[in-house]
């Protein structure tokens, strides 16, 4: 769950990390009114859930209210890495002497938190990390460990903060780390931490990603108006529909509708289709132990997508039981009907029950099953993949 800059700065303030006074605007007119009152040069910052904003033209400096409105017009039309601009943050323009970088993230491979700092902030920190690793300082920490002032002082000195500001810099580092642990973050960054011409330290940007799975522990976020949200770009209408239904789904460019069980084979199955010369039309994940209703909705998404020429189905019942799966497919067939060929394989937990349900349903309504080729454990999944590719090429299409 990624936060907007203005939300991140709300958290910064809570942890006494210095930030500029700022206002949020949702329209060019609002921008005009705010800047008119400020009577000083301002910076307008597009609020998007993505990095690389500066390079994409998402930051503008305006001397007065009219100029600000003109820029705001532009900014609200911008799409940055597929993300629309929802709001503009307005701050006084800073007279910047130096820019630093401070961040905290998780080194998952080594099970550590890592405090990262650099004297070269404001640019792409990943690039600095790659080209000048000596300019990046890292302090790995155990999840149960505090950062002490002495740790933070050393970092503040290493990145070259002026001597008179190292205590303040250390306090910012400690606060950022404490905030990371307090809010179950995956990433927090101040980039840049700015040293102004008049000798003040300010967090000029805020990047905060929290762990969706731990948001339940932090009801105060909701009180602050920060709501649960995923990190994603602009969605297609079908992706939006899937999200509303709680189904992880991505549109792709191919013509084979992927209807897999589990995320693991969801990914691998797409590779198989490619391997045999086909093109998947989507990525989809049923989630663990999907209900029959959910299974039916997954099929609705694919059946309604015009580009889909054939549906590839795979169910290996684990926590997802074959009987629930069969129930969902039958529900779909009865309520909605299948307009395209479906080749599928079903095995795993409760497969006998699943097969029996299909047989009973087919006996009652054989017409519902005329587009379906059904396989069990005896057929390798590769055969199903090949068959889906074959059917897709028979159907023609893109």
């Amino acid at each position, binding site marked *: 769950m990624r936060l907007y800059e203005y939300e991140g700065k709300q958290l910064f303030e809570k942890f006494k990390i210095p930030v500029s006074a700022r206002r949020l605007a949702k329209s060019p007119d609002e921008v005009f009114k705010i800047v008119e009152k400020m009577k000083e040069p301002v910076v307008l910052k597009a609020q998007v859930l993505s990095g690389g904003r500066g390079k994409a033209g998402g930051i503008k400096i305006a001397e007065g209210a009219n100029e600000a409105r003109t820029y705001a017009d532009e900014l609200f039309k911008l799409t940055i890495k597929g993300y629309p601009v929802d709001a503009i943050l307005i701050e006084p323009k800073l007279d910047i002497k130096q820019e630093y970088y401070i961040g905290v993230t*998780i080194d*998952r*491979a080594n*099970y*550590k*938190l890592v405090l990262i700092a650099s004297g070269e902030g404001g640019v792409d920190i*990943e690039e600095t990390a790659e080209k000048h690793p000596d300019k990046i300082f890292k302090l790995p920490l*155990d*999840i*149960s460990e505090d950062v002490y002032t002495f740790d933070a002082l050393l970092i503040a000195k290493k990145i070259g903060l002026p001597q008179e500001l190292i205590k303040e810099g250390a306090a910012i580092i400690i606060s950022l780390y404490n905030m990371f*642990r307090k809010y*179950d973050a*995956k990433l927090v960054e101040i980039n840049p931490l700015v040293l102004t011409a008049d000798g003040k330290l300010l967090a000029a940007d805020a990047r905060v990603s929290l*762990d*969706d*799975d*731990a948001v*339940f*522990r932090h009801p105060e976020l909701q009180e602050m108006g920060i709501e649960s949200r*995923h*990190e*994603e770009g602009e969605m297609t209408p079908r992706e939006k529909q899937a999200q509303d239904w709680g189904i*992880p789904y*991505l549109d*792709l460019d191919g013509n084979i509708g992927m209807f*897999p*069980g*589990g*995320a*693991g*084979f*969801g*990914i*691998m199955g*797409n*590779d*198989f289709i*490619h*391997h045999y010369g086909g093109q*998947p039309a989507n*990525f*989809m*994940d049923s*989630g*663990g132990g999907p209900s029959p209703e959910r299974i039916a909705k997954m099929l609705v998404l694919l059946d309604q997508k015009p580009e889909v020429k054939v549906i590839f189905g*795979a169910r*290996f*019942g*684990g*926590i997802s039981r074959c009987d629930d799966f069969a129930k969902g497919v039958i529900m779909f067939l009865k309520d909605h009907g299948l307009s395209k060929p479906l080749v599928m394989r079903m*095995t*795993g*937990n409760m*497969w006998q029950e699943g097969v029996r349900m299909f047989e009973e349903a087919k006996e009652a309504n054989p017409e519902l099953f005329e587009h379906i080729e059904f396989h069990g*454990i005896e057929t*390798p*999944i*590769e055969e199903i*993949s090949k068959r889906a590719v074959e059917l897709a090429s028979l159907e023609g299409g893109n």
Partner: protein
Amino acid sequence: MAILVDKSSKVMVQGMTGGAGKFHTARMLTYGTNIVGGTSPGKGGQEVEGKPVFDTVVECVENTGADVSAIFLPARFVMEAAIEAIRAGVKFLVIVPEHIPIHDMLHVRREAVAHGATVIGGNTAGVMTPGEANLGIMPDIAFKPGRVGTVSRSGSITYYVADTLTRTGYGETTCVGLGGDPVLGSTFDEILLKFEDDPKTKAVVMCGEIGGVYEERACNVIPDMKTPVLAMIGGIYAPPGKRMGHAGAIVEGKMGTAKEKLEMLADAGAHPCKTFLDIPETLKKLGV
């Protein structure tokens, strides 16, 4: 012989009185898994499938000798449950639930390392030693005792690989689901080394995934292993950087594209496979 769990393992179920706990306790017992009891705080004294339920792991261990635990609890209770089991002396834990807070898993890993326990999961289908014990939610239809070990991040991949090994007559020693969550209790290298020490395991199939961070660690141990390692990585054709269901399936910077992972593993001496059918062919070539 097998790794992690076999018929002599005394298995307990944490969260035994919940819906999933009850259902899978019954399934695991049906398979022949030696389940000796379980826990559910406040429900001590009850029974599930004729097995005693205790309030705490300490009581369960004292009364049943449990040395392995399968956790079936809502994600928010997993950290304490895992630490409880580890501190009570349980040496192998399977965390089935998904969506466990990442910081919680860091704490669990820390306790596990400190106490010499092995944790797999969260979001794992579990561990299966065919013919001996089924720990978790794996469908037994796919599995038969044999001579190849498997370790995968995804449950469904585990099933397909076992299905393939079973159909082609190799069978499996133990099948390990590493888990799909972004931070996991164990890493590929750790499980590979356990297979290396198991004389019955003649080869290992490891299946990684785009976005994971533990595939790279496997490269540290494969060069020194005598047991051949076959490697598959899911997501070769996945669009990079887009979210794909698993939180773990986000490409992290330059590291972790599926193609790079597979190349890295091949460089380390693993035998890359593209489909499941490549597995028996490779095993044949290796003379396993």
